[in-house]
């Protein structure tokens, strides 16, 4: 039986930059030879999936168009990735059987609140993303997503000065809340800090194994 393709779940509040993070991370991994498929749980539209398909598949040719799939969640984004992830799992398994050459599959949760977590049956690794524009209170407020994710990503650091957010406070609170577990500051608009996120995925999810395409 073939090994299952590793799965990375990405959750976070509406507008925190989940889709843009994927749009930055997938090319970073692609440049190292890793191929990813994407399942995007949109709450009320397929806009995110359409945008990623256009940007990553149609325009850049980094993946086949059928490797970006949009999934409706009945208005229940956290149910779809935690309490009843069966529809997502079915989608992941169909993608895996169509494309065994994939190195990983990324599952984007619909925008939700800070209690979001992924079912371990759906995701092997969980990234939670918040943004500076939501205020520097975010790490301190805790919540299951921020506390228990494998990697906390703090996005839109370029906006800190404009919204009165102190990155040093966020860093201090993130360390306090997460202990030794990692976090990364990023700017998904410019790509700043994305290499760190990609590095975590290569090390902690792919165990620094070479891309399948290179192994043959």
């Amino acid at each position, binding site marked *: 039986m073939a090994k299952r393709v590793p799965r990375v779940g990405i959750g976070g509040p509406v507008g925190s930059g989940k889709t843009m993070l994927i749009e930055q991370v997938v090319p970073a991994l692609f440049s190292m030879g890793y191929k990813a498929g994407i399942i995007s749980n949109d709450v009320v539209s*397929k806009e995110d999936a359409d945008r990623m398909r256009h940007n990553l598949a149609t325009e850049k040719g980094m993946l086949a168009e059928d490797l970006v799939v949009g*999934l409706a969640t009945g*208005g*229940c984004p956290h149910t779809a990735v935690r309490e009843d*992830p069966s529809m997502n799992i079915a989608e992941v398994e169909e993608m895996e059987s169509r494309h065994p050459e994939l190195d990983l599959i990324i599952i984007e949760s619909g925008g939700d609140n800070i209690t979001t977590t992924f079912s371990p049956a759906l995701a092997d690794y969980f990234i939670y993303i918040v943004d500076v524009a939501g205020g520097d209170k975010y790490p301190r407020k805790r919540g299951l997503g921020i506390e228990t994710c494998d990697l906390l990503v703090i996005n839109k650091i370029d906006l800190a000065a404009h919204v009165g957010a102190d990155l040093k406070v966020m860093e201090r609170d993130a360390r306090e809340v997460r202990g030794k577990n990692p976090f990364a500051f990023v700017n998904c608009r410019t790509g700043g800090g994305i290499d760190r996120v990609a590095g975590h995925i290569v090390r902690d999810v792919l165990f620094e194994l070479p891309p399948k395409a290179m192994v043959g």
Partner: protein
Amino acid sequence: MSTEFLSMLQLADSFFPAGTYTMSNGLEALAKRKKADVKELQELISTHLGRQVGPADCCALGNAYECAKKSNLGGILRADWALYAVKLVEEVRNASSRSGANLVRCVATFSDDKILSDYNNAVSEKRTSGMYPAALAVACAALRIPKREAGTMFLYSFCVGMAGAALRLGAIDHVAAQKMLHALRPTIAKIVEENVNKPLDRLWQFAPGIDVVQMEHERLDSKMFIT
């Protein structure tokens, strides 16, 4: 209290992970056309039950159940495919198939019933469609839930799903949803009686208005539900 009764509660619970909370069965497309009141919503659900879910899904469920009791895998697959064949709308067909696969796969992790295991293998190997009513019938037979109760549970869960979708679409409030479910009880009971013992060659469905809105849903750009 029998453990069979508890098994019935488990499978009927919306907490059971079969993905049915993602379905509005066309209601989302209809809501974009017009805001239905509670009375219209109840009529719509009754039409679903009387002209699709009852004569097609419940009939297939009854036949698959009888075959499961006789360890007749071929008969289960015939009922499964017959139901698949009459479901005209691709989105609805695929959603039912995925939910059925989810259901039977989950039950197979805590039941060692042989026919359930054989059916689960047939679904995962794509030798059968895994339509939700057929999968539910096999699971109920494995857990010794009586056939009539299996049919009732299926129709009731369908109504709960529709009421939940209506609530999330803002068409109905939480109390009105419960009143509607209460009012639907005689309809559910009657339609189960009419269909759960019918032979497979009398399976049918005819609700073109519902087919049309379900097809409209397939073409919506912005949607919250899978169907």
